[in-house]
């Protein structure tokens, strides 16, 4: 009871992580978190697109109940006045704070990230977020473009920084503030990368020499894929470097070497993200809060890296809907450490290839819509009731069930439920 919550949600991150078995990626900090966590290897989003997925898992309702399939409605007005997970923690005595991209900005969160309902203080957005789609990528001709593949010299960027760097700084500042404040907190940190544009500090390219990058194992449109199921990746086609390739609509394909460049930059952006997560978790140790803070790490959906001839999300394929999902729960998934001992020392992706294995890994199929009841149970709050079939008029209920029962406290392992032993 009374544990804090650090909720880390990453934009468009598929499980290309060491702790999920990916051999190419450098993600030592997330792997270190996994080594102290319950890790779910079959976790799925309810819709592979930002706003609908985020509103779904933050309200604990499915898209057919939030009635948000695009970006242009606010559930409290358009569907029902559903309580959100942060709102529930706020109503139960927590200071709730949002840094970066947690709700999708704009109409779907009432242009306010659902503040003040969900958050105790105004949500923080990095000042450099507004340049995200500007022409900041230097082409071979030295000119600036709005590219898909965009390794940058950070010192040349507006304010000489990037949004996720600013988000980490702000989250650390808030953690330092909570060190003295005895109130429980729910801090949500939303990272933008590896969402497009794949804009990251260019030094991360060194981790992924192009000769080591292959095409997807199945880079063709499957013969018997129904046309309606295919996602024509229109968003990346609008980027200057993709536009210049003059690729035919809807099936392309992109030239092989450019496909490898996209995959190379996605991996580089993941290692850049891993660095940010490492700095954030290192700060949790610094302020002495690692022993009483639950850490959740997940993403809003995945991303196709050329599989089935597709890129981006916008489909029902596993590569677009499957997400990393892990819970670090002090005393449950990892034993507490002595004062001063570190649980999450920062690991430099350039010198560390973790090789750490998850504390407990479950193959069980779970859903992001279960996050709300799961976190309520882990924090010792009353678990919201399961929704009735028609729940538009019900403010507090969830359409997912808690998955805590798959964590096994005694051995800190995630144990498969014995068939028939539901408790």
């Amino acid at each position, binding site marked *: 009871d009374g544990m804090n919550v650090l909720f880390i949600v990453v934009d468009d991150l598929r499980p290309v992580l060491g702790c999920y078995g990916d051999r190419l990626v450098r993600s030592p900090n997330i792997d270190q978190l996994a080594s102290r966590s319950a890790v779910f290897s*079959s*976790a*799925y*989003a*309810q*819709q*592979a*697109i930002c706003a609908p997925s985020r509103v779904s898992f933050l309200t604990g309702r*499915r*898209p*057919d109940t939030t*009635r948000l*399939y*695009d*970006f*242009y*409605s606010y559930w409290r007005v358009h569907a029902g006045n559903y309580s959100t997970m942060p709102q529930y923690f706020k109503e139960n005595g927590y200071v709730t704070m949002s840094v970066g991209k947690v709700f999708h900005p704009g109409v779907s969160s009432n242009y306010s990230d659902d503040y003040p309902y969900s958050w105790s203080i105004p949500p923080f957005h990095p000042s450099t977020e507004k340049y995200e789609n500007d022409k900041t990528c230097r082409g071979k001709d030295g000119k600036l473009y709005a590219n898909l593949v965009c390794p940058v010299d950070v010192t040349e960027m507006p304010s000489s920084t990037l949004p996720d760097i600013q988000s980490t700084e702000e989250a650390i500042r808030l953690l330092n503030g909570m060190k003295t404040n005895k109130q429980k907190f729910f801090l949500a940190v939303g990272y933008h990368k590896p969402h497009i544009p794949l804009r990251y500090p260019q030094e991360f390219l060194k981790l992924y020499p192009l000769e080591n990058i292959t095409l997807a*194992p*199945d880079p063709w449109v*499957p013969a*018997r*894929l*129904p*046309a*309606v*199921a*295919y*996602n*024509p*990746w*229109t*968003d990346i086609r609008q980027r200057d470097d993709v536009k210049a390739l003059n690729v035919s*609509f*809807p*099936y392309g394909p992109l030239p092989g070497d450019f496909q490898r460049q996209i995959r190379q930059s996605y991996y580089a952006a993941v290692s850049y993200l891993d660095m940010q997560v490492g700095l954030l978790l290192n700060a949790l140790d610094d302020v002495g809060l690692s022993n009483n803070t639950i850490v959740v790490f997940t993403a809003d959906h995945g991303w196709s890296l050329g*599989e*089935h001839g597709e890129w*981006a999300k*916008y*489909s*029902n*394929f*596993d590569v677009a*809907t499957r997400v990393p999902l892990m819970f670090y729960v002090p005393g449950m998934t990892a034993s507490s450490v002595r004062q001063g001992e570190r649980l999450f020392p920062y690991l430099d992706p350039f010198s560390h290839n973790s090789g750490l294995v998850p504390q407990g890994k479950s*193959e*069980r*199929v*779970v*859903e992001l819509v279960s996050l709300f009841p799961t976190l309520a149970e882990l924090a010792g709050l009353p678990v919201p009731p399961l929704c009735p079939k028609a729940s538009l008029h019900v403010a507090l209920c969830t359409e997912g069930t808690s998955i805590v029962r798959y964590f096994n406290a005694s051995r800190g392992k995630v144990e498969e439920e014995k*068939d028939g032993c539901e408790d």
Partner: protein
Amino acid sequence: TGGCVNGEPVALSQYPRPADTPQWNSDKPKLKDIRIMGYSMRTVGCRYTVWVGFNPNNFSANFEDVHAGELYVVETDPNQDYNIYNNTAHGVLFQKLF
């Protein structure tokens, strides 16, 4: 069917489309332009998807109006490249199940 159905926990996902064939707004159709909804049911063993008619005015899906289907068995097709939905035995079974 390859560990598909026997009491496994299920994850449900969905995706909207404006038309049966790809067009410029297929990735991100506005609510008013949604005509089809793809509902996916996945277990550890498989993924089954039906693309059915959808009415954006009353948010209703019509499971009698099936535009297309997908069925992938993870054991034999982990990358989901070989859609076996049209093998009628599966198709009928899953439509009933869904």
